[in-house]
């Protein structure tokens, strides 16, 4: 798999002891990121891993790259500053459903809107882990937690919908334990120029254990997960005999071979479609759950545009240095 032999994933581990709970989904996600990084072309010193607050946000300390563990909710703003300051860096924002969607919701939608070239890995465990078990903006309606003893009375966010609503250019979804799929997704995210949002469904073994069991248990997983790849038909199932077709304004699951349906009738995934309607349906679909790169469209990036504009103005302006500026406009000489 390795495209270059410069690094192994071990090169991306720091000397710090990993303090996530045994069995935490974060461990697998970190391992996928380290493996993905080892396979990319970027030198170690050009990675910057930025986080906010929460279990997942301890991530930078476990990496051997440059890292900055910020304050709650502000990972997006911090990463935006790093990348805008130096577009040559590969900037990875590690965040969670609380950090990105509650306290940091504003920064989340605005970094996406600007299309800053960041890789944002959103660990979604539908719970607050570090504060020990309160509901989050992705907890389901009615979920019983320490702060919702009678069930939440709040509708959850669907992160992908926020991406679409913010004019996002890249959205992918993965599952913590699915290391191979995640490596592929992370590499795609890095390749994408713009804000790449990768939602990783992550199990919290302590406060929300089993929240994704229906999706991930061995018996059903192939029938409940649809792994999307651009240009390939939307086929899934243990026997790869299920697929998606349009049914009016909705999607429906069909069985290939039944009612005269053949593979040719199955929808082909177009992640590059600038119009988000089909992608939105895929994002919202509950059975099967869509995984992989759902949207990847090309639009100018903010960081690039900022520097391009500066270069253009520099080349045209008569003001070349501070002395020029200080002496520009209306001045007069006192003898």
């Amino acid at each position: 798999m390795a495209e270059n032999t410069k690094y192994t994933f071990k090169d991306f581990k720091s000397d710090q002891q990993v303090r996530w709970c045994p069995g935490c989904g974060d461990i697998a996600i970190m391992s996928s990121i380290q493996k993905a990084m080892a396979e990319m072309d970027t030198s170690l010193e050009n990675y910057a891993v930025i986080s906010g607050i929460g279990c997942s946000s301890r991530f930078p300390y476990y990496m051997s790259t440059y890292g900055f563990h910020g304050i709650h909710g502000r990972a997006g703003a911090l990463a935006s500053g790093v990348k805008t300051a130096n577009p040559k860096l590969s900037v990875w924002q590690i965040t969670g459903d609380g950090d990105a969607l509650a306290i940091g919701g504003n920064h989340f939608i605005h970094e996406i809107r600007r299309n800053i070239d960041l890789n944002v890995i959103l660990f979604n465990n539908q719970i607050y882990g570090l504060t020990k078990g309160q509901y989050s903006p992705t907890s389901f309606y009615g979920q019983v937690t320490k702060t919702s003893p009678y069930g939440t009375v709040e509708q959850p966010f669907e992160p992908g919908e926020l991406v679409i609503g913010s004019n996002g250019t890249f959205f992918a979804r993965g599952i913590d334990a699915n290391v191979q799929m995640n490596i592929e997704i992370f590499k795609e995210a890095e390749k994408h120029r713009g804000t790449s949002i990768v939602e990783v469904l992550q199990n919290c073994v302590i406060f929300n254990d089993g929240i994704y069991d229906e999706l991930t248990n061995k018996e059903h997983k192939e029938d409940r997960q649809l792994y999307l790849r651009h240009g390939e038909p939307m086929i899934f199932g243990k026997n790869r005999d299920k697929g998606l077709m349009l049914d009016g304004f909705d999607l429906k699951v069909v069985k290939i071979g039944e009612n005269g349906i053949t593979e040719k009738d199955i929808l082909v995934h177009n992640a590059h479609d600038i119009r988000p309607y089909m992608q939105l349906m895929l994002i919202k679909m509950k059975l099967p759950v869509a995984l992989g790169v759902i949207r990847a469209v090309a639009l100018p990036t903010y960081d690039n545009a900022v520097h391009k504009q500066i270069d253009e103005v520099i080349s045209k302006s008569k003001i070349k240095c501070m002395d020029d500026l200080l002496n520009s406009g209306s001045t007069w000489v006192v003898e």
Partner: protein
Amino acid sequence: MDSKKTIIELERVVIKFSGDSGDGMQLTGMQFSDTSALMGNEVSTFPDYPAEIRAPQGTVGGVSGFQLNFGTEDINTPGDYADVLVAMNPAALKANLRWIKPGGTIILDIDSFTDKNLEKAEYKENPLLNDSLHDFHVIQAPITSLTKETLKELDLDTKSVIRTKNMFALGMVYWLFNRESEFSHEYFEKKFKKVPVIIQANKLVLDAGYNYAFSLQLVRSYRIPKAKIKSGTYRTVSGNVATAWGLLAAAEKSGLQLFLGSYPITPATEILQEIANRKDLGAISFQAEDEIAGIVSAIGAAFAGKFACTTTSGPGLALKSEAIGLAVIAELPLVIVNVQRGGPSTGLPTKTEQADLLQALYGRNGESPCVVIAVGTPSNCFKYAYIAGKIALEHMTPVILLTDGFIANGSSPWRIPKMSELDEIKTRFIKDGTQNYKPYQRIEGTMIREWAIPGMAGFEHRIGGLEKMAVTGTVSYVPENHEVMVRERAKKIEDIKNYIPDIKIQGEPDSDLVVVGWGGTYGHLLSTVNELNKEGKKVALLHFNYINPLPKNTEEVLGKYKKILVTEINDGQFFSYLRSKFPQFNYTKYNKIQGLPFTIQELKETIIKNLEE
């Protein structure tokens, strides 16, 4: 020029231009002040505008004013009370009457004194018809109708015609004070280059106003002799623009790109606008989604090796406080400019106050010391913004620079410095090839850490908001280590006292009473103390720019005086600060909390009272 005219020589004059917020009073005032500066006078200006962009026309709430003080010497403030008021409507008269000197001149646009406008200004009866103005010399000029008459030959719509009436008023004042019109003519030519008819209209109306004042046969006009000004090249600069330029200068001198993360807020927005306009100097301006993202993006940029700044006003500083703590613990260079305004909460957005001092010093969780510097005058904003950058970069720390609405919007002529005259700025980047980099290793003999930034191979490290182990910078919960780190961060700031100048005594050093102030009150305090000294009253002045740390001779100097009078535009914050630092001295205080600067008159009265006690 008319030879019959009596010309009276004056040392200084205060003029206030006042009208509806759409009447162009700011531009009129700026024209007068630029012309006066070009003619060799000292000038100090202050715009006074409502928080609403276009408050209901004709109401007192919608009045926009521009005050300027010009003269031969000691022009340190825009002046307390006006010698001349230009009032473009009844509301402008009503709003400003209490700020005119008895015997002063009022120039009115009589065309605007209609029943409807009088009603909007909530005048129960026409002030021109009773004796309420009898203390003043009132010139009732039909400004609107004469403007229309002047331009009737031009192919110009009524709205554009009316828009030039401010130039009629300016022309009148130009005659009154023997100003030359050519500077304004040049200004019109530049400003309206693309619309020759507007150039022509403005010139015609300005000259018409001038000729009208001349033909009124006003008995007197005034000459203000040139000031004795140090030789050099000068320009007019406002506090906000000077702040932006000081930051840009620090970036250039340090060899770093400027990154400004900011969110618009009155009265600080102009700094962001100015820097956004300086892409030619390589400045990156990031207009963030909120105040927090403004500072946090700047912290990210500092981590990435830029000269990072954020600009705001009081409520924004409150929103930024957690992030300032992050910059404190991460020990990254950052300049936070706070243009103070009246608070609490939204308070008085367009009015001035010095009430964010304690917020700047202490408004964060934990032991979180920052450098705090305050600026005294509009043009000194350049110097202290530059110094704030120098200290931030050389000492690897956030620096809070306090200005205020009064000096941010005020302007004065400024002797343009040469970049080569400015002090060097030494950055703390780790030297390539250094072995065994540790992020919290202090540079020998200092508390300063070295700066390694992403992209530098071999120096990869992690920083963040969790407490770090001394030297190595790994996360640490060791109780004793926390105390070590808290003290190291405090000492780093305290040590900066060795890099800043001692405080100088101004006025009469050998006095019993010293007046103490800080920040934007400098002009008023200096003029007051100078005047009192001239009158033979012994009083000294200590004016502070460096608030944390204080200059190292502060205690010694304060100890020379029997009485210390601390004057502030707040309820006594610097007073409390000094008392906590040096409890052995006796302090009294004088405070004004009206969203307005001091007047020299009230300061003199207060000081005299204190001298007599």
